């Protein structure tokens, strides 16, 4: 089935959860990512149970520091 991940049409296996998608998309540090599903921010505790459906829109939002000083 097809979903949209960060604006890109992506073909995934049926029945994939958010946690599994993070693995499939090679997100190395899932702790560094907030996930928005169809316009709503998901709780981290929901990643394992949330099963993706056809046409879902997923955004991986990364923690980014940067800016001044030592960083």
């Amino acid at each position, binding site marked *: 089935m097809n979903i949209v991940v*960060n*604006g890109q049409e992506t073909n995934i296996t049926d029945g994939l959860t958010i946690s599994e998608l993070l693995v499939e998309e090679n997100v190395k*540090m899932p*702790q*560094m990512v*907030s996930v*928005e599903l169809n*316009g*709503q*921010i998901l*709780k*981290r505790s929901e990643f394992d149970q949330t099963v993706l459906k056809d046409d879902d829109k997923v*955004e991986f*939002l*990364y*923690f*980014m*520091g*940067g*800016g*001044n*000083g*030592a*960083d």
Partner: protein
Amino acid sequence: MALTEQQMERYGRHIILEQVGGAGQEKLLASKVLIVGAGGLGAPAAVYLAAAGVGTIGIVDGDKVDLSNLQRQIIHHTPDVGKDKVVSAQSKIRAINPDTKVFTYNKRVSAQNVREIIRGYDFVIDGTDNFPAKFLINDACYFEKIPFSHAGILQFDGQLITVLPGRTTCYRCIFGAPPPANAVPSCSQAGVLGVLAGVIGSLQATEAIKSLLGIGELLTSTLLTYNALTMEFRKVPLGRNPDCPLCGQNPRITELKDEEQIVCDLKNGKC
């Protein structure tokens, strides 16, 4: 306050803009912007806001200029290495525009000092490099009801969002709480393209000016992401989070507190 002849000339390119005009320029001259972090993001923001004639600029930073800063922190120059960043930034702002008053805060923001520092400013630019500070600025701006611009950069990627506290999606709506310390890649470990800071910091300055003038559409409830390698800008609409611990339906954060400080140790190359 009427513009002088010199100011008419200096700000002429603004004044001929229909959305700015003489009245808008006077508004900028009467405005106060606080920049937290005189680094990669804060440097271009400070330079452009000073050039634009923002009347008061506050700069908060407790660090000194390091040689490794100069690759991207364009407000600091080679002879400034070793100087306090706020002193270095202040001298450049004064040289760019004598109309701009500069207030310096040679310290890091903390739960104890941040509200007092930001109070009275019209807009805050978060140009900090660490997550506890980013959350602290988000929370302090919420309690003081001051609009602000969040931004972050890493390697070739940048992001920013403008927050009107209590009205639009906040930083905690999206990210909740700082990530665990060992999960944080920093620019010193992962690198950052210097000009990326210029792109994103300049966008923050743009949002500040729009907010001060009340023109255009602010980047609210929308995270703008940018990748320098693909030159792709994306606007990701993000609704307010009803579970947000700060501005959600059942807020759990009712006063400021310092999040666990995750400070990168450059010398030992670890966080």
